C-alpha cells in the first residue's frame, strides 16, 4: 500500500488547509440554529476545487485520485467546523457529480460538470423512497419511455441538498418485470415541469445540509437524461454507493484528530482536586481511545483511497471504511463531550452539535447495520468456497486474489 502524495497533491492539500480563515468557524453554531445552506462557504470550497475534486481536469475538476482525495478531505475536516457543509459536499460529489463523470456521455459531462465543479451548481441524489431505503431496489418510482423521451412518476425522500440542488440523479423503474435489473438512472434538472421539491425535512444535526422530499408527477425528460444504459440503474447505484462509502467520511479523519487534540489539551489544562484531570485514569483512557480512533480511522480512510486507486473495490471493503469511520466519529464525539464535562454538554464549544452530526453518519449512505450485513455477507461467501477466515490480504488488490 502506498499513501504517498506527489508534490502537486501535497501542495493542493496545503491550499485546502489555508481555507481555515475563510470558513467562519466561529459562526458554525449559529448556522446550526439557522439551518441554512451557506452559499458563500460553498463558493469558498469551490474556489479551491473541492466541489470538483475527483472530476477530470478537462471538465473543470481537480482529477484527484483516491489517496489524494482522502488527504484533501481530511485537511478540510481539520479546518472546517461545519459538518453539515462537509456532508453537503460529500452528497454533491459522490452521489451526483462523480457518477456523471463516470457514466455520463460527453454531452452530459459538458452540460453538467463545469457548473458542478465551479460551485455554480449543486448536485443531489434522489434514490430513497418511503418503502425503499437500504433495500434500494424496492423503489416504485417509474420512468416510462414515450418514444421521444421519458416520463417519471413517484416520490423520493431524504434527498440531501434537495432544497438547493440544481440537478438530481434519480433512480426509477423502467421494467417492472426485471426487479433490480429493471431500474435505470436519470438526470433531472431543477425546474423541470412535474418535478417538485418539498419543504425541508427537520433532523437532529447536519443542519447546513438541507434535506427534502422530491416528487415527480408526469415529469418529462428527454432521451438525453438517461445516465448509462437502460437497466443499469442498480449497478450504477451500487458503484456510486461504493465510492461514496469510501470517501464521504474522509473529512472525519481531520475532525477526529481535532477532537483528540482539543480534548487532550483541555484534559491537560483543566485542574480538579489540585491536578490536571488528564491524571485521572478514567479521563486519560478516553484520550487514549480518541487518539487510537483518530489513527485507525486515518488508516481505514487511506486504505479506501488506495483501493480506489487500484480500480478494484468490493462493496464490503467500502462498507468497512464507512462503518469504522462513522462509529469512530460518534464514539469520539461522545468522549469529547464527556472529557469537557458541563462545557461539553453546553453549546458553547460545539461538541454537543458534533454528537448530533455524528449520529447522522451512522445512518446516511447506508446505516451501520446494513454495512455490517454487507461485510458479513462477503465473509460467508468466502466460507462457502472453503477459504473462510483467510480473507484477502489488505495489501493485495482484489484482482490478484
Amino acid at each position: 500500500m502506498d499513501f504517498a502524495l506527489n508534490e502537486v497533491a501535497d501542495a493542493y492539500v496545503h491550499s485546502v488547509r489555508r481555507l481555515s480563515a475563510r470558513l467562519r468557524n466561529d459562526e458554525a453554531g449559529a448556522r446550526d440554529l439557522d439551518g441554512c445552506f451557506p452559499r458563500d462557504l460553498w463558493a469558498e470550497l469551490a474556489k479551491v476545487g473541492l466541489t470538483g475534486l475527483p472530476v477530470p481536469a478537462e471538465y473543470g475538476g481537480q482529477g484527484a485520485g483516491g489517496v489524494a482525495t482522502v488527504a484533501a478531505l481530511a485537511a478540510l475536516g481539520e479546518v472546517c467546523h461545519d459538518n453539515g457543509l462537509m456532508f453537503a459536499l460529500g452528497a454533491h460529489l459522490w452521489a451526483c457529480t462523480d457518477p456523471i463523470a463516470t457514466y455520463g456521455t460527453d454531452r452530459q459531462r459538458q452540460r453538467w460538470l463545469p457548473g458542478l465543479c465551479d460551485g455554480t451548481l449543486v448536485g443531489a441524489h434522489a434514490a430513497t423512497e418511503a418503502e425503499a431505503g437500504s433495500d434500494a431496489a424496492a423503489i416504485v418510482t417509474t420512468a416510462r419511455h414515450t418514444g421521444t423521451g421519458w416520463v417519471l412518476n413517484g416520490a423520493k425522500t431524504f434527498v440531501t441538498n434537495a432544497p438547493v440542488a440544481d440537478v438530481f440523479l434519480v433512480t426509477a423503474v423502467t421494467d417492472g418485470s426485471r426487479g433490480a435489473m429493471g431500474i435505470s438512472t436519470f438526470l433531472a434538472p431543477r425546474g423541470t415541469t412535474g418535478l417538485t421539491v418539498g419543504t425541508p425535512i427537520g433532523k437532529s444535526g447536519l443542519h447546513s445540509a438541507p434535506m427534502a422530499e422530491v416528487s415527480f408527477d408526469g415529469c418529462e425528460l428527454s432521451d438525453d437524461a438517461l445516465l448509462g444504459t437502460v437497466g443499469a440503474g442498480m449497478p450504477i447505484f451500487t458503484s456510486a454507493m461504493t465510492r461514496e462509502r469510501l470517501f464521504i467520511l474522509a473529512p472525519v479523519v481531520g475532525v477526529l484528530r481535532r477532537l483528540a487534540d482539543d480534548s487532550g489539551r483541555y484534559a491537560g489544562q483543566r485542574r480538579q482536586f489540585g491536578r490536571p484531570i488528564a491524571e485521572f485514569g478514567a479521563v486519560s483512557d478516553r484520550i487514549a481511545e480518541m487518539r487510537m480512533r483518530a489513527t485507525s480511522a486515518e488508516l481505514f480512510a487511506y486504505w479506501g483511497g488506495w483501493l480506489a486507486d487500484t480500480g478494484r473495490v468490493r462493496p464490503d471493503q467500502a462498507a468497512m471504511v464507512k462503518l469504522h469511520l462513522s462509529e469512530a466519529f460518534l464514539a469520539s464525539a461522545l468522549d469529547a463531550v464527556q472529557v469537557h464535562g458541563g462545557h461539553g454538554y453546553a453549546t458553547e464549544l460545539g461538541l454537543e452539535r458534533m454528537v448530533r452530526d455524528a449520529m447522522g453518519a451512522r445512518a446516511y449512505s447506508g446505516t451501520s447495520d446494513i454495512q455490517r450485513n454487507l461485510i458479513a455477507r462477503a465473509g460467508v461467501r468466502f466460507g462457502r468456497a472453503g477459504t473462510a477466515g483467510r480473507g484477502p490480504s489488505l495489501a493485495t488488490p482484489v484482482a490478484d486474489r
Partner: protein
Amino acid sequence: MSDNGTKTSSVQEDIRRYIIDELGWAGERDTLTDSYNLIDNQVLDSLSVVEFSVLLEQRYHVEVTAVDLVYENFHSLGAIDAFVTRKQQQAVAS
C-alpha cells in the same frame, strides 16, 4: 474463442461452479442449465452481479463497468458467456 466452443463451456462451467460454491445454490445441479434465468429466479441480485463483475475481470481479463451489468448480459450462463466472449473480442480488436 467461441468458434470451437472450448472457451464457452469453460466460462459457463466456471460460473456454474461459482454459483454453487459461493452463492450457495440449493437446487439440483441439473436445473442450472445454460439458459436457466438467473435474474428472474433470484440466483443473482443487484449486489451479487457487481461482485460477479470483479470475478469476470479477474478470471477473463475483461473490463466490466456498471453499464455492462444489465439484464441482457447476465440473465443466464449462456448470456454471461456471450458477454465475456464479446468483451474479449473487443479487447483484441482494440
